[in-house]
């Protein structure tokens, strides 16, 4: 669509959220009735490992976990995930997961449902 030799101009909405992104956010976010953030982080780590991810970073003070997985059998592609654990109130915390395939965000809700199902299981095991 680019006309002639003019460089493309950023649209006015470049930094405004689109509807698709808002929808994605609700898919990526869950709240849990867990008090202990460290426990939740360990649960996130365990869930990611169960899904075959390699943990790259686990930063407790920031509540941030980054992980990645080689998209085997495709040896050149990487699936990356960033999970943040945020304490909302003393009793509840919010967990948000962002997944990308190489540089492209994954917007399939099934992927996130699968992650949260695994997470629930691993949080449940730790609490017994």
């Amino acid at each position: 669509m680019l006309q002639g030799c003019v460089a493309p101009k950023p649209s006015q909405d470049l930094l405004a959220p689109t509807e698709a992104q808002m929808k994605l956010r609700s898919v990526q976010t869950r709240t849990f009735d867990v008090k202990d953030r460290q426990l939740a982080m360990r649960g996130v780590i365990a869930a990611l490992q169960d899904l075959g991810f390699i943990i790259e970073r686990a930063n407790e003070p920031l509540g941030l976990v980054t992980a990645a997985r080689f998209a085997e059998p495709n040896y050149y592609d990487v699936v990356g995930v960033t999970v943040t654990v945020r304490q909302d109130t003393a009793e509840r915390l919010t967990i948000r997961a962002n997944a990308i395939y190489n540089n492209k965000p994954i917007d399939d809700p099934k992927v996130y449902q699968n992650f949260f199902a695994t997470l629930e299981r691993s949080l449940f095991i730790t609490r017994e």
Partner: protein
Amino acid sequence: MAGRTPGVRVIAAALVGASLLLPGCAATPYEWRHDNQWDSRKQIWLSEESQVRLRAAQSRVFDTTDRRRTIEAVVATMQDLGFMVAFLDEELGIVAGKKFEPLERPSIGTDPFYHLYNDTSLLIFTRSYRSWGPFWHRSDLVRLMITVRRRNESQLVVRASAQYYLRAVEDPVPYQKFFHTLEQALVLQGQLVQ
């Protein structure tokens, strides 16, 4: 390598030899300086005997229980030896550092890529091959790791392990020299294990 008949190896050697004789071959001397093997996954292991030999050469026992002071001395020693301390965990008693030795200097002039080097990005998940240094300088990376662990109620054991030109350093002499410097920093004599 085991289980292969000598015949196969002779043929292999002949073919490798032939590849070396090819004119304009991509097999540069740089490549030949790297270890060759049948299965590169085997690099994950060190042989059991070299593990035992290395453990003795790399470890010293110190008559102190002051972990903090020992770690501080280790950091000071590493800095004296020109290593940049890239990792330190006091709780686990681990210090790791690295330095770059210009082992792969071009014969004429300088390699401009060498100055673009960003050594903080040694993370593994990057799709750019510049991530681990400019390609021909990756073997310049020297790494050193020290662990400080409690041995018993009155002693600590310090272990050093180094990596040089994509190999584990197995020669005991560099370790002796390292511990000599560390002993001076600690003002303590280290003993060999057992």
